[in-house]
């Protein structure tokens, strides 16, 4: 799959196989790896994601997909390899700095601020957008009123992507499962990322919810002109909206390509069939 220098029709929307994009890709990962107590959870992971690409990361359970996200966001520090975000090396950055540099994510096991309202969850995502000091907040200086008003407007606007404005005052922990997943996406978007990582966004959703989610993922990409990389087991979603797909098995990439290429790849079929037999 590694045939470089192939021309791409839409330069800003290249896919996972390494190609010359004409512009700096948003994400370039080379030889990324980590091991947990001797086990190589991810090994020699290489990937390039274009600026407005929707990329998929698939693979059987325990393949290391979530670990890749944790490495990209520095929740785990990589043992090896380099991650370039917008051409800049992210070595030594913390999770917080990674977010400020432009990567936002959701979590496979939803991590909302359960005790807070939906609106507050989004406002927390806007933490670095509308800033004012602790003292301005305590003293209720004009900056406080100004920033809070803007944050509220922005929060409601972001919630409207998923038609969730009317849930603004609900407690995040009280939302149904699907809505919690959507709120996590909104919260991540609030940080104004250039790359959005979604870890199993459709998990626990019914088919019609999934359908709507697919449309919304594309809508988000088009609205914000950002790259989205998603982990998903729902093949209809992956094949339906991803422009490039990488397949992970036992921590290693076994295939990269367009949905059509992936579907026809014998190694992929083998990996999934092997999984089925075990199950």
């Amino acid at each position, binding site marked *: 799959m590694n045939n470089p220098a192939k021309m791409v029709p839409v330069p800003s929307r290249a896919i996972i196989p390494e190609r010359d994009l004409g512009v700096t890709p948003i994400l370039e990962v080379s030889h990324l790896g980590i091991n947990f107590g001797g086990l190589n959870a991810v090994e020699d992971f290489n990937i390039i994601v274009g600026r407005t690409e929707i990329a998929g990361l698939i693979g059987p359970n325990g393949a290391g997909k979530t670990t890749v996200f944790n490495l990209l966001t520095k929740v785990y520090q990589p043992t090896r390899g380099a991650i370039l975000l917008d051409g800049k090396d992210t070595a030594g950055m913390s999770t917080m700095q990674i977010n400020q540099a432009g990567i936002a994510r959701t979590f496979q096991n939803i991590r909302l*601020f*359960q005790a*807070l309202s939906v609106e507050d969850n989004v406002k927390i995502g806007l*933490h670095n957008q509308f800033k004012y000091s602790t003292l301005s907040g305590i003293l209720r200086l004009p900056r406080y009123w100004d920033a809070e008003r803007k944050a509220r407007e922005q929060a409601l606007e972001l919630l409207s992507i998923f038609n969730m404005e009317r849930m603004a*005052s609900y407690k995040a922990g009280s939302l149904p499962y699907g809505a919690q997943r959507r709120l996590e996406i909104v919260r991540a978007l609030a940080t104004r990322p250039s790359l959005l990582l979604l870890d199993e966004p459709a*998990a626990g959703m019914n088919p019609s919810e999934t359908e709507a989610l697919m449309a919304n993922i594309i809508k988000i990409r088009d609205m914000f002109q950002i790259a989205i990389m998603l982990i998903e*087991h729902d093949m209809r979603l992956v094949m339906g909206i991803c422009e490039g797909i990488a397949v992970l098995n036992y921590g290693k990439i076994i295939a990269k390509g367009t949905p059509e290429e992936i579907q026809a790849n014998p190694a992929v079929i083998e990996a999934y069939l092997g999984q089925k037999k075990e199950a």
Partner: protein
Amino acid sequence: MKMTKPGQKRLISNAITYAIVIVAYVLIQILDGSGNLTSSLRGQLVPICAYIVMAVSLNLTVGVLGELSLGHAGFMSLGAFSGVIVSLGLRDTVSAGPLRLLAALLVGAVIAGLFGFIVGVPALRLRGDYLAIVTLAFGEIIKNVINTLYVGIGPDGLRISMSDQASLGLGESGTVIMRGPMGAVGVDKLASFGAGVILVLITLAIVLNLVHSRSGRAIMAVRDNRIAAESVGISITRYKLTAFIISAALAGAAGALYALNYSTVVARKFDFNTSILVLVFVVLGGIGNIRGSIIAAAVLTVLPELLRAFNDYRMLAYAVILILVMLTSNNDRLKQLRWRIRSYFQHSSRRQEAEHE
């Protein structure tokens, strides 16, 4: 944009909290004016205010930040003794009592806040139980060190010694402020109920405004989910420290208020038991519930005065209350379900992977 329901609810809830304090103040003034206040109760008014500030500020650490501090009395102690030193140090230059009180409260808050920073930097890197034990250790260190301090004011300023009074070398004209284990003596009783109520109101304003601001949300985000908070670009250390320092500074002010209500103050007063007592106020009033802290602190300080016969069993009752509140508030089926889901997410990734994938 129009204010929605939760915003209004919050506003009303905060207004009620302030109103309770003000109404209580007015009522007590009326009672006192008509001679219906016993002298023992009158003597409790300033300590009640101090304990309310202690409880509200500890609730900031326990309820809003979600970390257990067992050394809150240590910050109170720092505020108490630095407040006493300031008030006596200013005796010759500032004659107005309220001004000296104000200076004492401010310095008490600043010193305690400074120590909050010093303890917080290492302690807040630690998780839960370790943090609790470090704050406990800090409280003990403070008590220990203050117990060995001799402080006096000579003609050329402040003198400090850790061995004995004579080594201060104050001569005839100096004033001794602190005498080691005997504590501070000859303290001016500058504190008043009115000043105490003002401090309570300021504390409320600081804590409530903080909670409903950008920093407050960041603090609660850290409490609810550390990793998610980091993932949206929030600095864990910064906001943990912010909460911890504000909490410590308020405890310092409470200490200064408390100390300036008595003519002598000893470090033993601010020991582990005091930290626990304040924790009882917080737990009983509801973790995270500011108004509850106020009521619990006031009631539990007055109650033993009213029920003297009950005194022997008071501490035992506090212990039972702590246990029962924890057991019941975590035993409610719904709550338990919620917590179970949460600890699933936090602790057992294997099981949850099997479930969701």
